[in-house]
């Protein structure tokens, strides 16, 4: 029955084409915060392999901390909640939205407000960090494509920041 109610997203559906970079709102997706002392505990529950190294991503799961992963999956995906196990699965699908930056200036748009060194941030890296005062998660999906996760209510600000820099 979910088609009865429409979703309303915080950022524009129309991409912004800036100088050498396109800013796009990613479509809705399922997100799960996965917590466990060992990656193996999660792998056993979910049947997928989970990266062990902090700051890396594989098959939709990024390792954000020693006991923390974020899983991105197609909209509507459901996974086991791990009841009774010594781990934590929490759905956070609507907590974040994602903004995609693509193009030769994608890294420089991020560098406008993020102190990471993107020359040394390889494809496949994924990390929580901060853009000016707003916490984000940056995933480098390709040399010139970044997926940026941000909490929903900060997304309009981040969109405006990206678009402002992209237009410069």
């Amino acid at each position, binding site marked *: 029955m979910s*088609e009865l109610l429409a*979703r*309303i997203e915080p950022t524009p559906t129309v991409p912004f084409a800036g100088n050498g970079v396109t800013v796009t709102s990613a479509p809705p997706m399922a997100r799960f915060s996965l917590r466990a002392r060992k990656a193996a505990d999660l792998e056993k529950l979910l049947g997928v392999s989970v990266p062990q190294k902090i700051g890396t991503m594989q098959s939709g799961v990024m390792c954000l901390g020693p006991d923390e992963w974020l899983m991105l999956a197609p909209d509507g995906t459901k996974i086991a909640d791990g009841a009774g196990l010594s*781990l934590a699965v929490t759905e956070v699908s*609507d*907590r974040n939205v994602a903004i995609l930056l693509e193009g030769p200036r994608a890294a420089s748009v991020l560098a406008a407000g993020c102190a990471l060194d993107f020359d040394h941030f390889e494809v496949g890296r994924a990390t929580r960090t901060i853009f000016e005062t707003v916490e984000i998660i940056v995933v480098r999906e390709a040399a010139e494509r970044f997926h940026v996760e941000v909490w929903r209510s*900060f997304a309009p*600000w981040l969109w405006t920041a990206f678009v402002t*820099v992209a237009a*410069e």
Partner: protein
Amino acid sequence: MTGYRLPTGGRINRAAQVTFSFDGSSFVGFEGDTLASALLASGVQLFGRSFKYHRPRGLVGSGSEEPNALISVSRGPGRFTPNLRATNVDLYQGMEATSQNRWPSLKFDFGAINDRLGMFFPAGFYNKTFMWPRSFWEKLYEPAIRRMAGLGQAPTEVDPDHYAATYAHCDVLIIGAGPAGIDAALEAAATNKRIILIDEQDELGGGALSDPALWPWLDRSLKALAASPNVTVLTRTTAFGYFHDNFIGAVERLTDHLASMPDGPREKLWRIRATEVILAQGAIERPLVFDGNDTPGVMLASAAKVFALRYGVAVGQSVALMASHDSGWNDAFALAGAGVGIAAIIDVRDIVDEALLAKANALGIEVRLGHSVIGVRGRLGVKGITVARNDGTAASDITCDALLMAGGWTPTVHLWSHSKGSLAWREDLGAFVPDVPNENVRCVGACAGTWNFGAGVVVDVLPTPKDPARLKAFVDFQNDVTAKDIKLAVREGFRSIEHIKRYTTNGMATDQGKTSNLNGLQIASTALNKPVTDIGLTTFRPPYTPQTFGALAGHAKGALFQPTRKTNIDSWAEEQGAVFELVAQWRRARYFPKAGEDMLAAVNRECRMVRSSVGIFDASTLGKIEVVGPDAAEFLNRMYTNPWKALEPGRCRYGLLLKEDGFITDDGVSARLAPDRFHLTTTTGGAARVLNLMEDYLQTEWPDLNLWLTSTSEHYAVIALQGPNARKVLEPLVEGIDLSAEAFPHMAIREGTICGIPTRLFRVSFTGELGYEINVPSAYGRTLWERIMAEGARYDITPYGTETMHVLRAEKGFIIVGQDTDGTVTPFDAGLDWAVGKKKADFVGKRSLARPDIVAPGRKQLVGLLTDDPSIVLEEGAQIVADPNQPVPMKMIGHVTSSYWSETLGRSIAMALVEGGHSKMGQDIFVPMPGKTHVAKVSSMVFYDAEGARLNV
């Protein structure tokens, strides 16, 4: 005079004329000129007035060291910029520049009366007077001082420009693109390192720009750099500060030099993290200190050379040089080579290099060794000088229209000092040079003290037969500090260079002492009869040159200043004309006025509707934390004041959170979804604080516990549906949940769907009415809200805002943490004894509740207040006294924390923190307000439905 432009030479584009104005008069310069060079070429020597004495002043330098030539540039509304150094202003077609700190005109300035009276205004004069009569300080003296002080006019309009910022990373950052910096860049470019080369000027080259012999080298070098993909070059960029761990702040000026303004940012802040920093900032020539050294036309020899060879401008037609250093001689020779007439070379030294003498002789330049300038003729410009032997004899006049000073060189160690690198005194240079680095940084070229400018001697004040007490020999030109001011400071007992600086203001002008610090130090050293190294060194502070607020703020302006967080439902409220308030980073609807309603009318209506039918409220901003894991209940039991282990799944509990100091920091209703899963709520402003506090305990105190905390604040939109008809509105929309009172009692949670969307449905109430809080994924918040509005239309469902929420909860005596508590209130003070687990051995903050002052009688306790006059709504924050007739200062026993008109009760209600309040029930207290004292009785905080009958339906 028709002008001083040399017929040939310089790097200006003589094919491109640029017209501009200065103080309303029209001038013509060339592309490549600075405002200074173009005015100088037009015969302008008078550029400004000094800060204190309003003395006429001309150029001293040719770049960032310039102390005198401060001007304002206006380029349309909001684009007025005061205090620019004319030497740093790149000329553009149509520029409108004006001089500053003069009235009515630059040539005739009433303020110059200060100069006549200068003897009464020595350093620190204001410490010694303006004290009588006492009332005159604020009414007369201070306003007069303020009007005289200040340099340029203050801006009056909002700046329409915008500013950019970025981070950047490199392996080697080279600051300064003179020959040493360029060489360093070329060397590094040959590696695979990432290199950034920055320079404050419009062209790379530094000193090489005024040395035509180096131009072929410069061209070759720049081509090589341009061809190196690993080299980023930033011109018109000033590295202004050197911060921890090789973090350098720089500002790039993007549009100020352009005749027509593009849309882009005016300036860009570069925040550069470098593995290695190479400082190649060069050195600044030092003026000499003698009577009349501030006359327009007296300037640094190196500056005259720059004007001649870089800009093709003669600083005079007959120029004299006063030197204590060889470099001045070479500059004079270069000027002569460019066709500038050299009237004489005077050198304070008795002996100079034979080669210099020979060259002067060959050029036919008159030389006076062992002589000093003892006076300068001319007021608005140099007309001639008087020189004498160093023993004061044989005074004679020399006619000239400019006088150059060559007092030796000061390495530019500002950034080195910012980085906390140590400095070593070099007696031969009379200057401090970089010694031991504190970061991965090295200095090259002149700023390292390794450049060969030739020999020289260091003199503090040139020998003169005049009375030293009468000399107008300036050290800090802009701040009008003279040698005798420094001597006065020493005489009055100021011995540290920092004291001397502060007493005289030497080095504290907008040039930050680039030309004055070392001369000041030398004079102090002589006066104290102590070596320079015993007097200390003033600390250089960022920025190297002044930088705009706009650039330092970067993008953080307007919409990008700080995020305003909005819920999914916010747009609906905006469309309905809601009035908002800001709470933490969020904006929340405060009330929903209908036509003609003020806040009170709207809130009264909203309250009425909630109590009588049903109201709807956006509670999405509440903080939410999912606590999951086998030890979840144990953890909450340790964090909260009350017991949590026995809470059954499907039930909710009010949680009260203290800090370890025992004071209330947050509260909220939380639910147990499963044995190992809780859904916590926090206050809106407390969301991040609570999560951080809990993470701290979890990670560092109890790492053995198996549970994890995840913020879900933004995953859920939360709609509160409150009022006797709440269930009826909800029933048609919900599936999978039995809403009956028996199946779903107050303080319970159920999971199911609403309009097909998964929901966590709380049965909770912050209003005292039957109530639900509907949690759904955030993106559905507004569309669900609109569905509920449609469903509730037959009950006249009424949206309400935070103000009504506050009134309704106050009627029930529910506290708001942060309003009724203030970080000094314990659970017992707040009357929340019932929320403290008496049997619990420990919880965060428990031990502090046993401290002597916390258990002592007389603490302020939260109570209700009912005014004797029910129509009086006390002001929140009003103070309470027991005896209204006592004199001021009164003994205050508390204050009103919350106060409202209660439409439900038809009277005012209030909550207050009152000393010993819990034992004052029924007693009168007094609230003295201007003009009237209100009387109120202490009461219970629960004003409405004390038995809770309306909840359990």
